[in-house]
C-alpha cells in the first residue's frame, strides 16, 4: 500500500495535456501550480507492483518531461 508524491514536469506547452492525462488515471490526484510549469502528483496504489506499473505508465506520456519522486509512505493494508 504505497502513497507517493512527485513533481511532474511537462514539456514546454504540454502542461494542460499532461494534466488531462493524469486526471484520467484512477490512482492519481494532482495539484497543478498556477504560475509554473510543474504539477504535484500524488499516487495511491494497492501494492508495490501496482505502483511500479502506474509509474511506468505515466512515464510513457509524451507530455511528460521529468517525473521526480519527493516522498513515499507505506501504510498497512488494513488502513483502508
Amino acid at each position: 500500500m504505497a502513497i507517493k508524491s512527485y513533481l511532474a514536469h511537462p514539456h514546454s506547452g504540454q502542461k494542460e495535456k499532461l494534466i488531462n492525462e493524469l486526471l484520467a488515471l484512477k490512482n492519481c490526484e494532482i495539484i497543478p501550480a498556477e504560475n509554473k510549469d510543474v504539477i504535484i502528483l500524488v499516487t495511491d496504489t494497492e501494492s508495490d507492483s501496482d505502483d511500479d506499473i502506474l509509474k511506468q505508465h505515466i512515464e510513457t506520456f509524451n507530455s511528460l518531461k521529468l517525473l521526480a519522486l519527493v516522498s513515499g509512505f507505506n501504510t498497512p493494508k488494513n488502513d483502508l
Partner: protein
Amino acid sequence: MSATLTSRRIFIKKMAATAAMTAAMTMFPGIIFASEQLAGISEGNLDWKKGPCRFCGVGCGILVGVENGKAVAVKGDPNSSVNKGLLCVKGYHQTMCIQASDRLTHALVKKNGKYVKTPINEALDLVARKMKSTIEKHGKDSVAMYTSGQSTIPEGYVASKLMKGAIGTNNLDCNARLCMASAVTGFLTSFGADEPMGCYEDIDHADYFITWGNNMAEMHPVLFSRMLEQKNNRGAKIIDFATRTTRSSTASNRSILFEPQTDLAVANAICYEIINNGWVNTKFVEDHTTFSKGLTKMGYGLEDNYSFTDKPTKINFAEYKKFLEDYTPEKVEKYSKVSAKDIKYLASIYGNPNKKVVSYWCMGMNQHTRGTWMNNLVYNIHLLTGKISQPGNGPFSLTGQPSACGTAREVGTFTHKLPHGVVTNRKDREMAARIWKVPVERIPAKPTYHATEMFRAVDRGDIKFIWTQVTNPLVSLPKTKRYTAGMKKDSCFVVVSDVFPTPTSDVADVILPASWHIEKSGLYGNSERRTQYWDKMVEGPGDTTPDAWMTIEVAKRMGYGDLFPYSKENHAEEIYNEYRQFHEGAKHGMAPLEVLKKESGVIWPYVNGKSTQWRFNSKYDPACDNGKDFHFYGKPDGKAVIWQRPYEPAAEFPDKEYPFWLNTGRVIEHWHTGSMTRRIPVLHKAMPHAYVEFHPDDAKALSIRDGENVKVISRRGECVLPASINKRGLPTKGQVFVPFFDENMMINDVTLDAFCPISKEPDYKKCAVKIQKA
C-alpha cells in the same frame, strides 16, 4: 474504525502532497498553488509534539504526529523562525527509520566470536568492569570516549563529566572534529569566542549571499530556499564559489569555479583588491581590529603523534598590505583558474559600502588542511570592510550536525575543551571542578587525542578501551582502512552505542542499543546559537536506552555515583540545569528550560528574557561594555584579529601517477554515513548507492560510459563505483567527486588523513587518485 482509518489515509496523502509542494517551493520560488488545496492538513487523531529535526545543523523545527504511541507523521513547525514550516525531503521522512527491521533493540555481547543477546544491565556491568580494569592495569589515559555532534547536550555533558571530571582523562573527542573544528579555531583565533555572530535573520536583510565551497541547495536546503525567496522577492543575489558545479550553482546568479586549495589565494586577492581600491572601512579597522601573523609551512599531520602550536606575532597594516602584494588578482588567476575579472567582481561586492553581504560556508572551508586559515581569511574580508555583526552583514559558518554547536562546541566534547573554556586554563578547570564537585587536580591540564590521533592510538595499542556513541567512525574517518584494522585488534575493547548496526558496531565487543531522537528527551544547539528542547515523544523498543543514561549507569557502576545524582525520568532536565551554570552571564547565558519548553528554540546569549541575535554589536548585544559601537569581547583587548595567512599547497595533489583530484561529500537524500536514511525506503530508493562523478571530457578521454563501474584508486586504497556523467553534479576537469554515505562503496578507504595543524580537522576534499575500469 473504518472512518478513522480512511481519514488517516487521506491525511497521509495530504502529507505527501505537502512534501511535494515544499519541494516545489524550494525549486520555484514564488510558486503558487490553488489556495483551497493549501488549506492545511487534516489533523486526524494525532497529537503533534514539537522538537528539532534529527538531521543537519540548520535546526529546523518539526512537529511529530503521534497516534497510539507511534510516530506516524512529521511536518515543519510553522512557529519556528528557522524554517517557518518548511522541511527538506530528509526531514519529512525522518521517523520512518525507527521501525527498521534490523533496529538494535537489545544489548549484544561478543562471546566466542558471536554476538549474544544480553540484558542491558549485564552489558552495562561488563562495560563498567572493563573500563575500570583497563584503567587499573594501564592507567586512565588507556580509555577513551568518542562521541558526536548528534549527541544531545545532556549526553555530551555527562560524557565530559565522566571522562574529565570523574576518571580524570582528556581522552574524549567527537566526530565534530571531522566537520567543524576549523570553524572553531577560526572563530577563536579571530574573535576569541566560538560560533557565528549573526543569525538566520541575516537572510532577510542581505543583498548578496556568497557561498564558499558550500552546496547549500543539497546540504542546507531549507536555508537555501529562504535565500531563493529573497532572490525572487527582493532581487538579492547568490554567488556560488566552488570547485564543482552543483544544484546550488545552477540556482545562483553566478557560479565561479576555482582550483582546489586556491581559495586561500583568492581570499587574499579579494583583500588585496579591497585595500588597493580604497574600500577599507578605516574607522572600523582602526577601532576594532589588530593584525597578526602565525607560523607557516606547518605540515599536514600525516605522521603519528604530530603536534603543532602556532606562535602569533603582531604585525601592522603596512606589513599586511605588503604581504598581500603576492596576491594580486593577476598573479592569483594563474593558479586558481579564477579570472582576475571574477576576483575583482567578488571584491567589488564586499567592497561596496551600500551592499550587505553574508558569506556562508561549511565543509569546503572546514575540511581543509589550512581550514583555520581559510576561516580567518573570510573573516579578514568582513573585518576590512566592517561588514560584520549587523543584520544582513556577516560571515556565517554553517554546521553539518544538529548539535555540533550545542553539544560538541558548547558543552565541549573535544579533548581540549571543558563546558566553559579549555582544559589548559586553570580558571576554567576550577569552574568545572566546582560545578562537578571534584578536586581541580583531577582534571588534566593537557589535551590528549584529537579524533584522527585517537584512532591512530587505538591502532598503535595505546588506547585499550574505546566507547563510541552516536557516530560511525569506520565509515566517516579518512583512510578508514587503517582504523578499521586498528579497531579489530584484540588490544582494544570496543563498545559501540547506536540505533542501527553499522560497520563500526560490526567490530564491537559490546553493542549497546541506543534510543533514537524522539524516544528520549533532549536538547540540540544549531548553527545560529539556537538551543532547542524536546520531550520524549514515543517509547523505544526493547531495551533501548538514552545514551546519557547509559553513561550515567556506567559511571555509577565505576564508583562515581555521587557525581551523577540524576533521575532516570528527568535526567535530561536535571543535567541541563546543572550545565547552564557554566554559561551564566551576558556573553553566553542560556535560557531556562521552562522557556525552551514553550518556544521553538532560543538563541544565546539569552539576557533579560531576550535572545541576542547579533553578537559584538552594542546595539544588539548587552555584553558589549567598551562604550563603542562594536566590542569583540572574546579578545582581552576587545579587538578582532586580521590574520596574515598565505596560500600553501594541499597535502597531496594530482601527479602523473594519480592524475585526478578526489573530492568527497554528501547528497540531499542521505544523512552522513547513511545509517538512518538508507533505512528509509523512499530515500534509499531515490539514491540507492554512491557513484563517482566525472567531467564529460575526462570520461570521454578514459572511454568511460555513464553507469559503468570504475575503480577509484589512491595510494591508500581503492573503491569500485558506477560512473556518473552529466547528472547531479559536474566536477571541473581533472576532478572526480564521490559521496560518502554508502558503506558498501567505501570511498574513505581512499581518502587521506591529512589535517589542519591548528584545528586537527581532516581534509576530505583533496587527495590524488587514478581511475581504472573495474
